């Protein structure tokens, strides 16, 4: 899940002077009594792949449809490249969308589908042909130009839909679950293809997805949505390593969550006493919460070491337990360890060595769990 793109990317969201390209300002959308999007404010910068991530019904698609112009916000405004587009109808916006169902016109060939948008702009035929050909070449569909959509496979349809939405050179491309209809193998391959095309053309992408892996791979930044609100915005690494709430920690990846009480609160570390854990967490980052407040400690399973012997050294961040369950997944194994208080902890360990006899920890063994003090994250909500 490493995101190579961040290395050679500027990070305009860190620059307070940078002007956002898309500015979503206090946007609310109600359908009758139901609030689909609740007071969302969001800035997206030029050249980003911004992922809106959330479960079904969290409002991410409604937000996307408001950017496309299919829904009008109940309150708030949306501007693109300095122009207020809130009331602009979809056929006038310099925004295009790739639909989840691809929405290829069944009565038109691939060529006609891609040319449709250009025809609406009344461009000369020669230019239309040239741009369509160029686009089909980019998505490697040039030899299918005269096919009808039903004569294409799922992956081919996806590429035609992409070509059709990019051919008008939109300022903003909206993608609604772009890979959901593809099978797993093809999806992985297509993710990187999508990133390459985005980098070639430099178009700003907003992607809606419910698939966290997809969001982690594609996104320059992720906006996690829950209950019609944006709960956290950040790079994939930020979201994973520094979740701001229990929801985000739990939604992205798997996590062990311990409820506890803040007993020591210093600028550079905190100590949390947790009955769940039957011990004290020592966490090497500060928290803004009142002393004795109830907090939660999130600890990722891959950040826990599992050992037969008690680890050396003084201090907290170690606990004893019994292995109750092991799942062997090939590349890694998942251990479920029951602590003295009854709490189950999930631990994953990569299987670096090939399985060999009694070297591995097995069922019902007494083990010690330990972790670095920089690994847990304390969240207050």
């Amino acid at each position, binding site marked *: 899940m490493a995101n190579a793109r961040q290395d050679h990317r500027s990070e305009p969201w860190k620059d307070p002077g940078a002007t956002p390209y898309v500015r979503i300002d206090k946007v609310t959308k109600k359908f009758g009594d139901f609030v689909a999007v609740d007071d969302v404010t969001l800035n997206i910068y030029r050249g980003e792949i911004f992922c809106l991530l959330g479960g079904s019904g969290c409002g991410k698609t409604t937000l996307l449809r408001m950017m496309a112009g299919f829904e009008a916000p109940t309150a708030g405004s949306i501007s693109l490249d300095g122009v207020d587009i809130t009331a602009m109808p979809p056929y006038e916006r310099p925004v295009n969308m790739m639909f989840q169902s691809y929405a290829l016109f*069944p*009565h*038109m*060939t691939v060529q*006609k589908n891609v040319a449709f948008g250009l*025809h609406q702009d009344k461009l000369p035929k020669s230019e239309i042909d040239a741009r369509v050909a160029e686009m089909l070449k980019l998505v490697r569909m040039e030899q299918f130009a*005269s096919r*009808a*959509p*039903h*004569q294409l496979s799922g992956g081919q349809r996806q590429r035609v839909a992409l070509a059709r939405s990019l051919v008008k050179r939109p300022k903003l491309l909206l993608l609604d679950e772009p890979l959901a209809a593809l099978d797993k193998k093809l999806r992985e391959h297509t993710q990187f293809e999508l990133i390459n095309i985005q980098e070639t053309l430099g178009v700003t992408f907003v992607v809606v997805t419910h698939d966290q892996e997809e969001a982690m791979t594609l996104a320059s930044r992720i906006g996690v949505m829950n209950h019609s609100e944006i709960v956290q915005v950040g790079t994939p690494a930020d979201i994973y390593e520094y979740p701001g709430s229990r929801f985000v920690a739990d939604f992205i990846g798997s996590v062990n969550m311990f409820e506890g009480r803040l007993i020591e609160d210093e600028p550079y570390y905190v100590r949390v006493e947790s009955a769940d854990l039957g011990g004290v967490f020592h966490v090497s980052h500060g928290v803004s919460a009142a002393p004795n407040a109830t907090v939660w400690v999130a600890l990722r399973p891959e950040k826990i070491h599992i050992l037969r012997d008690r680890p050396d050294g003084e201090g907290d961040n170690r606990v004893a337990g019994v292995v109750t369950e092991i799942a062997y997944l090939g590349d890694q194994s998942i251990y479920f360890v029951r602590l003295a208080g009854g709490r189950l902890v999930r631990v994953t360990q990569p299987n670096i060595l090939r399985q060999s006899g009694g070297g591995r920890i097995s069922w019902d063994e007494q083990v010690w769990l330990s972790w670095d003090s920089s690994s847990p994250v304390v969240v207050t909500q």
Partner: protein
Amino acid sequence: MAILGFLESGGGHAVSRNAREVGDSSPFVLTGLMAWIKALGPYRWASNRLRDRGMSGRTAVISVPYLWLLLFFLVPFLIVLKISFSDIRLGMPPYEPFVTWASAHVMDLKFNFGNYAFLWEDALYRNAYANSIMTAGFSTILCLLIGYPMAYGIARSKPSWRNLLLLLVMLPFWTSFLLRVYAWIGILKNNGLINNLLMSMGVIDEPIVMLQTNFAVYLGIVYSYLPFMVLPLYTAIEKLDLTLLEAAADLGCRPTKAFFKITIPLTKGGIVAGSMLVFIPAVGEFVIPALLGGPGSLMIGRVLWEEFFNNRSWPIASAVAIAMLILLVFPIWILQRVQGREMGAHR
């Protein structure tokens, strides 16, 4: 409606099938046509006038069919209602005006419930109502008994056969209703096909009287509306997941019992839809009782017709129509809409 659904699904296939042919004779021809139409003065004039009055295309799309239905469907019922309260008179039109102007500003409303009282008191009308409901109900049950096995058989046929068999069910629907009812006259009458056949075989000596009996009316209704029953049943049975029956068998349920415990409950939607499609038109049926039924098989549609055409009693005919609306049509319409909403909710 099921028949329509069938048509529509046939149409659905055709769409993408044509996709290949469209190829170059593309719908941009249509764009050209549109441009041409737009260039014409009248189009521009009309659309400008509409826009001046705040009429968008959307409003126009809604209001055209709306106004048509209001004028030609809703208003007529108000007139029927009005005339049902009027007195009969000789002349043309054969009813007294309902609203008379006593003076320039005083409107004189005359409600006359006499027509309704007449309907209530005369056993003929009550019998006709009861008879209509019974005839339609009985025919619906017969249709279901014949239609269910047929639909079941079609749904369990080889896929290549299914469309052909469905086409065979549909075909009579497209041929004239009147002529199909007429065909039964030739079969049922005293020197008709059945009697001739039975007499020549020596089974009977005297012809059996079948035409102009209630039996003939049931037969006519079942025959005419059987396709309406089979199609929704077929749709429901065809959708049924066969692994459910396998699961039932696996759990020790015998096929007959599985049919009543699994198949019937899960195809209830089709049974209700099909029964509605038969019962509703059968209640108001005129042609079948008029051609096949005897003087005894009075159905309400036929009574209305005879009041209107033979007795020229427009107010009575109107009162019959209103009574029919309130007692039969309206409940059915409500029931159908509620059911439709339920089905929508399940989707």
